[in-house]
């Protein structure tokens, strides 16, 4: 059961599309309504970061399963400017765009796992996952 979707992220319309696809996949995996909202919101935040900071990138949504559980893995990838100070970006209240500064730490709280790799000048890759509560 490996269902993967790739969504190109270039505009606010793609942000909307990505979160709708994420919700649909989550429904398919049997997530409860609250988790679907958490998933769609996390996707929305990551996709918007791509549009805002890197202008374009890609999101990968994948349904995963092992013997015991089902889940959704989401990867957001771009070749934008990257994040110079990751540690600071993960602190609440920090944002280079002068926005809310709640993006990444907030997304981390919504999900079960959160992993970020970023190299200045090369881009950013955020890997998050959510497992179905059984």
């Amino acid at each position: 059961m490996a269902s993967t979707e790739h969504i190109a992220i270039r505009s606010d319309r793609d942000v909307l599309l990505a979160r709708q696809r994420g919700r649909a996949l989550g429904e398919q995996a049997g997530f409860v309504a609250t988790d679907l909202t958490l998933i769609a919101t996390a996707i929305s935040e990551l996709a918007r970061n791509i549009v805002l900071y890197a202008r374009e990138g890609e999101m990968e949504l994948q349904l995963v399963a092992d013997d015991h559980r089902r889940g959704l893995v989401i990867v957001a990838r771009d070749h934008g400017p990257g994040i110079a100070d990751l540690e600071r970006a993960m602190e609440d209240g920090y944002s280079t765009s002068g926005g809310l500064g709640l993006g990444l730490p907030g997304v981390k709280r919504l999900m079960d796992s959160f992993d970020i790799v970023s190299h200045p000048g090369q881009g950013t890759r955020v890997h998050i996952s959510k497992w179905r509560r059984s």
Partner: protein
Amino acid sequence: MDVPVLKQGQYLIATVQSALTDADLAQLRRSLVEQVGRFRSRGVIVDVTAVDVLDSFACRILRDIAHMAGFRGAETVIVGIHPDLAFTMVQLGLSLEGVATALDLEEGLAYLDQHTRRPGRRALHSGATLPESKTRGVH
């Protein structure tokens, strides 16, 4: 996609649909703030009952609407934040920073009725109370 805005008496009621892009939300902000002036509205209700995601951007737009309408003399109340949205917003660390909220449209209307009354001003402009207060002043 345009957000339908209903004018009901002195209030504007905007019903936000689930699938709005950032540009749609920014358009709603522009349009509501403009309509407050055009219709001389005293209250704005933004109904988010049908909204599936209130992320940081949507939240900022809601705050903007309330603050901008406030600068124009209108009170704003956000209604219809369902439990999943409330939970997600708390997890994400989002805040509406003092913007009024109410459970649903009915409560929102009740809130506006309470908060947009201007008795002092109404009394001053009312033909019945003005002479009376003048008389009282003479005595």
